[in-house]
């Protein structure tokens, strides 16, 4: 069965999503177990794939038995295996952790919710595993459509934010589609490996240049890279907490994976860094993105919005790192995909727990929170330390690679932006910790002196959070192994050392 892992990974969640939809009309109680089972199978096969990739380098799977470029092929290498594990594990943990809050918010439409949730994860896994540029577009649309629906079910301005996301997301996906149309018209193929073998003869063609620019702009729109980020803060802030802790860690990171995949596999580093003189411009855009993200985060009035701006800054880290054009920068960017997914999950889960108990996420709601929800706040602090980049946690190591890449490339503006953003993150999170630890709990009926009783979120919400928090440290400790065994083999030798 292990040769079918790449396809099981995607089709088991798809089939289960359909099953959940049917079961949801008959008996709602079975929806959650099916979803958990489906995502467990996906997580199991992605871990299995990772181990197989370590031995075999690249695993190809021909769907329908047709060899590429005629049929669609799945190709799994180290990079996609790493991102697959991250996506499937994050989705599974988040599903278990948010079960209670999902039941609280969507008791009536629980079947539809789990259907969309599992379909969204299917789409994300499919994007990562596919080796065909058009297949990637179709899966991109699945993730996009399901996330529009899930985000719009939040409160207050959620439908409006989601509608804005529809406009921007559709332009992004359409530009990507146009870009691959340009690639198709100049190469005649849709398979990534095949395109990259034809492209070297066409590096001087205007069509290929335009294809690259259009694809990149489309992907940047989808990942909320700075000047194109306007849709993200509102969409992620007003989304239901179970949804924001799924899409915030995964959507932007998977889009960064797509960018790196296009850069490394389709257009190849020789074309990007030798033929095009765009590298400097993009790194400077990333610097602006990091600065703006940090400054806007300082001005935010509630926790979720603040975290959304932090995400925009983090997108800047990864794009900048990937475009530095050297090994260390690319290593940092890829490592940061995994680390950032974990730490974003960690802080969003903590916020989700607080929302579950207090029904609010403004800064005032945090008063006395350390007494009330000590374990949740421990998780939040772990995530915060990682976002700041304090050594034992994994955030430090990816930032280390990014900074050393910046120094090697002589991009001191990027280094300065990284340091500045870490300082701002420290200020942001210490402000939260200060409010949570020192300010007294605001009791509901004016009895300010009444002792704060511990009222922790249910165990199913706290345990996954603490697992993720522990995972941050574990990832940090094993950074060396991850870099040498998984990330090093992906980066082509052409990128120097």
């Amino acid at each position, binding site marked *: 069965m292990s040769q*079918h892992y790449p396809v099981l990974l995607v*089709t088991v969640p798809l089939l289960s999503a*359909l099953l959940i939809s049917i079961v949801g009309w008959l008996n709602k109680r079975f929806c959650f177990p099916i979803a958990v089972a489906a995502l467990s199978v996906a997580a199991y096969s992605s871990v299995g794939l990772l181990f197989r990739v370590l031995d075999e380098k690249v695993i190809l799977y021909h*769907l329908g038995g047709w060899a590429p470029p*005629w049929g669609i092929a799945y190709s799994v290498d180290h990079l996609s295996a790493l991102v697959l594990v991250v996506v499937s594990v994050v989705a599974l943990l988040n599903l278990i952790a948010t079960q209670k809050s999902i039941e609280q918010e969507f008791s009536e439409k629980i079947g*539809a919710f789990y259907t969309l949730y599992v379909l969204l994860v299917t789409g994300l896994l499919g994007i990562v595993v596919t080796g065909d540029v058009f297949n990637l577009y*179709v899966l991109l649309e699945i993730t996009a459509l399901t996330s529009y629906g899930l985000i719009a079910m939040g409160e207050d301005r959620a439908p409006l934010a989601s509608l804005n996301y529809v406009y921007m997301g559709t332009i992004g996906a359409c530009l990507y589609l146009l870009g691959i149309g340009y690639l198709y*018209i100049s190469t005649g193929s849709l398979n990534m490996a095949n395109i990259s073998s034809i492209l070297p003869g066409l590096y001087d063609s*205007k069509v290929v240049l335009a294809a690259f620019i259009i694809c990149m702009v489309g992907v940047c729109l989808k990942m909320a890279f700075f000047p194109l980020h306007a849709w993200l803060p509102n969409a992620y802030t007003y989304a239901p907490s179970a949804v924001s802790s799924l899409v915030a860690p995964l959507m932007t990171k998977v889009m960064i994976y797509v960018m790196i995949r296009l850069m490394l596999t389709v257009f190849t580093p020789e074309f990007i860094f030798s033929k095009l003189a765009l590298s400097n411009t993009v790194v400077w855009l990333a610097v602006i993105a990091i600065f703006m993200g940090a400054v806007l985060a300082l001005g935010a009035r509630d926790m979720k919005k603040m975290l959304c701006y932090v995400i925009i800054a983090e997108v800047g880290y990864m794009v900048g790192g990937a475009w530095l054009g050297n090994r260390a920068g690319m290593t940092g960017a890829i490592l940061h995909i995994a680390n950032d997914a974990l730490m974003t999950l960690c802080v969003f889960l903590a916020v989700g727990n607080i929302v579950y108990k207090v029904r609010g996420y403004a800064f005032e709601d945090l008063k006395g929170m350390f007494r009330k929800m000590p374990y949740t706040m421990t998780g939040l602090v772990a995530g915060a330390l990682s976002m700041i980049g304090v050594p034992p946690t994994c955030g430090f190591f990816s930032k280390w690679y990014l900074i050393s890449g910046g120094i090697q490339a002589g991009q001191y503006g990027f280094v300065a932006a990284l340091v500045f953003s870490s300082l701002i993150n420290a200020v942001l999170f210490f402000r939260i910790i200060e409010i949570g630890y020192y300010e007294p709990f605001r009791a509901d009926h004016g009895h300010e002196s009444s002792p704060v009783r511990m009222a922790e979120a249910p165990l199913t919400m706290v345990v996954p959070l603490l697992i993720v928090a522990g995972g941050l440290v574990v990832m940090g400790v094993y950074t060396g192994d991850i870099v040498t065994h998984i990330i090093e083999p992906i980066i082509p030798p052409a990128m120097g050392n």
Partner: protein
Amino acid sequence: MRIFGIIVVILTGALLIYAMGDFPSWADPASPAHNHVSPRYIEKSLEQTSVPNLVTAVLADYRGYDTMFETAVIFAAGVVCFFLLRIPRKDEPTVRRYRHTLTGITISVKETREIPPVLEEFERIDTLWTPPDLIIKTCCRILVPFLQLFGLYVIAHGHHSPGGGFQGGVILGASMILLAISHDLRTAIGRMSERVHAILCSVGVFIFAGTGALCLVLGLNFLDYGALARILHVDPVTARSHGILIVEIGVGLAVMTAMIWIYNNISSKGKYDEGL
């Protein structure tokens, strides 16, 4: 905003027109797009899949995996529309209108549940009700069965002529939507209830993905219809043709029900009470 729009449009247009210089001219047979992958589709697909319609062969076989997700996209759209808009029936009293067919007198009744009219001559009407147009109603009622027959033909004949699951499914869906427009939403839902089309929508995609999984269980790759030869007792090439037909039926079912589902939710704003 208008000036910003003009600037963005001019910049994007300039990039696209700049790239146009290196494009092959229109319908140039020497274009790379026609000479790398596609000749093999044209020359081999009749031999490999025994389907003369190349679009169907490529759609459902060579690139069948894309099509599976495409069906999943339309299913997702149906679920999203339901998830966003559907308002579950509450027992709050609502005002419904009834019309006495003989005298034309309209009465409003405030009631919690729909009470079937006691008297034969009372009929339930919409808020924005117009006098019934006999010509429209009759024409549409006559059209619906022919539309459905044509839809089935388009699905079944997709191997040999333009058509296939999507086109046929849309025609079938349109027949039900026509019924809802010409009569009212309740008539259409009376023919096909919400639960039925919601379940059929997932069943449609399930037929597609399940066929793929069946091929996997039978020992070949996912969606490799050649594996069906063992259970259909035909040669692998004919099995591919049959596999495509099974899959197209699934697509037709999913698209038809998804169209109806989206229409019902949007036109009644999720109340399933009054359409448009």
